[in-house]
């Protein structure tokens, strides 16, 4: 009985509503936070930041956003790449047109703008459902990418059509541009991640979350019960868009620094984020993180093992990587269709009963 919840009684509904009602979990959470804020910044270097931490944090935000839409509200979207692009381009336009405003707000506003765009593309969800909707969101994906590629205003008429993040600072410390320090970019993203996670958690445990889940589980019944499907779906698209936009903005400004829209925000991105939430667990905040971590780490690990240790040719490793990622996705789905989050829950359940099997 490693993991206990017995003896952990609640005396008020407020404590029962907590994010981590179980003491054990709460402790774990505080430890993670402490390490993230107080330890990692001091030991992180460029490689770790760029190969692992930044992508992990940024994808985690996108995954949170998509999970709200897909996992909680049941509206499958394949437009994530396009929406991230909106965030990125919004951020670029803001950074270049209002250099005096702090980048922090640029990122937030980019999220807001993306939320709006997302809502527009979410409107058809009122009529179109299931896979039809999933495919329909590809319209957003392709259209947005085309738009940003085509309209020079978005890339400030640069000859190549690429956008480059100029240097911007927070408290005098650069967080974008070439002269950044690993710890600064890391902390900058971390703050967004933590805030996003809290917001997502709050929304999903309250009425908004219930409405989304109701729509997801049975939209007709939900409407008859009194859920306004328009509002519920639209709010899910908006919130999801906000997160995805923030992540797109960070992805461009902090992580890549320069972006070519079709490359960075193509359909592969949409799938990648979708994978994250499926592998992590649909309808789970923890799952969004787990999925992002898994899919960021996996290729890095495979590469280190294949190329650096075994010394195999890069192409064979790259092909093997596809095989392994594909195989793992299938394996995961077979073992636990509800993702890493569910695996974690079951493990906890088993630990709770341990050493008894049932």
């Amino acid at each position, binding site marked *: 009985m490693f993991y206990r919840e017995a003896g952990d009684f609640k005396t008020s509904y407020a404590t029962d509503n907590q994010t981590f009602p179980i003491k054990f979990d709460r402790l774990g959470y505080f430890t993670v936070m402490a390490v993230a804020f107080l330890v990692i910044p001091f030991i992180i270097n460029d490689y770790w930041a760029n190969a692992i931490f930044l992508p992990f944090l940024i994808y985690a935000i996108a995954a949170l956003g998509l999970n709200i839409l897909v996992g909680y509200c049941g509206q499958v979207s394949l437009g994530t790449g396009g929406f991230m692009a909106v965030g990125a381009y919004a951020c670029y336009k803001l950074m270049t047109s209002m250099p005096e405003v702090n980048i922090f707000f640029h990122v937030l506003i980019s999220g807001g703008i993306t939320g709006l765009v997302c809502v527009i593309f979410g409107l058809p969800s009122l009529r179109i459902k299931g896979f039809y909707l999933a*495919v*329909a969101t*590809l319209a957003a994906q392709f259209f947005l990418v085309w738009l940003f590629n085509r309209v020079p205003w978005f890339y400030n008429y640069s000859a190549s059509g690429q956008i480059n993040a100029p240097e911007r600072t927070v408290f005098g410390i650069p967080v974008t541009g070439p002269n950044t320090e690993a710890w600064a970019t890391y902390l900058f993203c971390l703050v967004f991640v933590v805030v996003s996670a809290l917001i997502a958690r709050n929304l999903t445990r309250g009425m908004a979350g219930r409405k989304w889940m109701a729509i997801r589980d049975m939209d007709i019944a939900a409407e008859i019960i009194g859920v306004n499907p328009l509002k519920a779906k639209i709010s899910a698209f908006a919130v999801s868009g906000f997160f995805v936009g923030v992540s797109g903005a960070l992805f461009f400004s902090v992580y890549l620094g320069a972006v070519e829209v079709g490359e960075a925000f193509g359909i592969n991105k949409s*799938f990648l984020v979708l994978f994250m939430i499926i592998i992590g667990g649909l309808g789970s905040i923890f799952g969004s993180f787990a999925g992002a971590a898994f899919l960021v780490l996996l290729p890095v690990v495979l590469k280190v093992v294949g190329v650096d240790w075994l010394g*195999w*040719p890069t*192409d064979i490793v790259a092909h093997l990587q596809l095989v392994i990622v594909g195989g793992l*996705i299938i394996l995961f789905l077979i073992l636990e269709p509800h993702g890493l989050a569910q695996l974690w829950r079951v493990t906890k359940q088993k630990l709770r009963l341990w050493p008894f099997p049932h």
Partner: protein
Amino acid sequence: MPEQLVFAMEVFLNGLMAGVLYALVALGFVLIYKASGIFNFAQGVMALFAAMTLVGIQKGQVPFSHLINAVLGTHIHHFGWHVHSLLAILLTVGVMIFLAWAVQKFVFRHLVGQEPIILFMATIGLAYFLEGFADLMWGSEIKTLDVCLTANACLPQGINLAIDEATYNWFGYGFFIDNLDITATIVAIILVSALVIFSQYTKQGRAMRAVADDHQAALSVGISLNFIWVLVWSVAGFVALVAGIMWGAKSGVQFSLSLIALKALPVLMLGGFTSIPGAIVGGLIIGVGEKMFEFLIGPMVGGATENWFAYVLALVFLVFRPQGLFGEKIIERV
């Protein structure tokens, strides 16, 4: 006749032809969706895999030679023989049936009763897997595909002169119609008729539709899901091979072939995920739609609209008919 109108007609016809090629890919999707409710994202990669296998067999390539060479340090590449196209096609069909069996055995058998989105994800996983696997097996360089009955009776390609001439005589402007497209159209017509008959009028076809509706119930009346699925995946594999040949002949056999799946999706939406004729009609509408749009509006907005236009067109359509043109009506009851 005014020039623009003649041009438009040519574009229209070419749109129809392009539509047929899209439909060929879409057909594979429809089959599997109909029989298992699985939205098989791997269909495009299956086409790639089929085409690569065909070329590999034709040219007598040693499968996995790169991997073998890398691990064992050997230098093997070719068996040194050449296989006749027809035989190679037969062998490839065999490989596709084996693939169907393997997919069933190792993937979907374990996912019976899961939600559609999970199955969908599994097919994306499968797509990745197959993509890497195909490359490992046959190498990732571009391959040329020639399907020939005899040395000089190959899949025809290039402008059809008869049409060019005839239209020139009528309109004073010869239309461009690609021979390959004409072939594809004929093949598609045969394929679709056969499939419609199969699904609508045979016992296995009926069982297939039953499985699509309710896995559990199908099991309970003794329909073997495994068998039906192997069957449909095999048929879908065959359709993928046909699509792979047509597209491969056009653009060479290489990675991008798998992206044709993306061309088929709007076709599916428009035609309805469950309708075989829908795939054809949807394909035609999308083909004509995007080519005409690129012709008429494209120049004003800077071109390259085809990628998104098909989707937007399908989207607009769906708003009015959420189950697609021919899709089964979504039964909504409480």
